[in-house]
């Protein structure tokens, strides 16, 4: 077991929030077609408020801190926030589109000991990337930023979201990352907007694209291992939890609201009125989320994928129930292994209009 896994298990047992994702703003200079945020400023936390939140997070034991947005550099105090975070000895990862990063910002991020910078790149072709971000020239500026960051010795990751509009460019974008000498991640997940609007879900790739994705060793490593059928579900798996949301991780938005995860829009408290520790340890919503074990899931507990599925409780919540299935993860499990999920079988049964009750005659 790696040391990090060991520490995560320890944090889980102690109820320590090891990782926090903090969006410092929802304002952005790009208008990405798939973005789930409302970019109007609804009264984001001040510098002093954010510093106070960071103090409380350090006190609570948070180690990994993701600073994201919106575009983080839309805040003029962003580097001051990073400096405060680093004085508190967080492991800091910054997510940005890089458009506003120049040599000075790069040097400062390096001096402050930021662990990693993640930049979104949706295509190697400007006509596709810029059409997604709706900001002309954005690909060129983001690539320049990646070069600055690399030249300072910072660890850089290029992250891509695979959508209908850029699915053909996946290989080219990956090649660009290799050429720039940075890590590459690809996620086929498009989530509903935080206000519940699902119109952007039509950007989700077709199922055939998932098959292609999961068969690509450049992306998944050992394809045979990645796509192998799920191991039989045992008691330990049923007693386990489906993800770290609310257990060792949570999300804070620019207005001080705390959620179990960035993809789990269940409000659990507000840092403008409550202390972080009060929300983390005493919020009824947070406690409900962390009470749910795999065996408590309404459909998934009977699914053969129960022990290996990437089921997102936040997406399930947005579908109607935090104890229910997350259909997009059902699809991923199916396309990874070829084995339909319990939820898919249940839906297929309903669609077929079969009998409501099936009766097996007693044997004579």
């Amino acid at each position, binding site marked *: 077991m790696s040391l*990090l896994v060991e520490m995560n298990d*320890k*944090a889980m047992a102690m109820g320590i929030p090891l990782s926090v994702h903090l969006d410092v703003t929802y304002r952005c200079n790009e208008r990405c077609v798939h973005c789930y945020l409302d970019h109007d400023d609804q009264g984001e936390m001040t510098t002093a408020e954010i510093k106070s939140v960071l103090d409380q997070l*350090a006190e609570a034991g948070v*180690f990994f801190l993701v600073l994201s947005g919106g575009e983080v550099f839309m805040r003029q105090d962003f580097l001051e926030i990073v400096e405060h975070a680093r004085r508190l000895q967080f492991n800091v990862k910054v997510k940005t589109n890089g458009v506003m990063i120049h040599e000075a910002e790069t040097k400062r991020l390096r001096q*402050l000991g930021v662990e990693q910078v993640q930049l979104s790149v949706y295509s190697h072709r400007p006509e596709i990337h810029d059409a997604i971000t709706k900001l002309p020239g954005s690909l060129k500026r983001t690539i320049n930023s990646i070069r600055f960051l690399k030249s300072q010795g910072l*660890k850089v990751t290029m992250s891509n979201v695979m959508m209908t509009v850029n699915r053909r460019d996946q290989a080219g974008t990956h090649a660009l990352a290799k050429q720039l000498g940075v890590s590459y991640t690809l996620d086929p997940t498009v989530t509903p907007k935080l206000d519940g609007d699902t119109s952007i879900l039509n950007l989700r790739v077709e199922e055939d694209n998932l098959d292609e994705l999961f068969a690509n060793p450049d992306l998944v490593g050992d394809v045979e291992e990645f796509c192998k059928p799920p191991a039989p579900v045992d008691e330990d798996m049923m007693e386990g939890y489906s993800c770290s949301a609310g257990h060792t991780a949570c999300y804070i938005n620019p207005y001080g609201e705390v959620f179990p995860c960035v993809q789990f829009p269940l409000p659990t408290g507000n840092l403008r009125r409550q202390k972080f520790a009060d929300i983390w340890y005493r919020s009824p919503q947070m406690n409900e989320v962390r009470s749910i074990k795999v065996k408590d899931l309404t459909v998934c507990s009977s699914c053969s994928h129960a022990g290996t599925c990437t089921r997102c409780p936040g997406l399930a919540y947005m579908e109607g129930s935090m104890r229910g299935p997350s259909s997009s993860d059902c699809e991923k499990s199916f396309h990874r292994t070829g084995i339909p999920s319990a939820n898919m079988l249940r839906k297929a049964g309903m669609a077929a209009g079969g009998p409501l009750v099936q009766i097996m005659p007693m044997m004579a």
Partner: protein
Amino acid sequence: MNAEDNCMAETYIVRSAAIAARKLGGEMMIMSAVDSTFFTLNEVATVIWQAADGRTPLSEIIERRVCAEFDVEPEVARQDAEQFVTELSQHRILLVSDSPIPEPKLGTAEAQ
């Protein structure tokens, strides 16, 4: 360092600024911002780490903190502490000197 050197010169240790660190259940987690190496320190090492202010000699940290707080022989404590200091200094997590050293300031070249 050998025993003879130890008699002649003190060792001073100070925490690098280029690290992420947090205490989890009595044990310190540390990650180097230079090479992302991840360390966990046991309770004794955590005490030494927290006392590494660049002004207090290592021998004093061992005597006043380690031996006073834990049931350990001074010689064993010294050997363990020296091994710990050597290991962490190789990853630039701890900075070592034979004279007092100021604590590195975050955001400066010397902190990297």
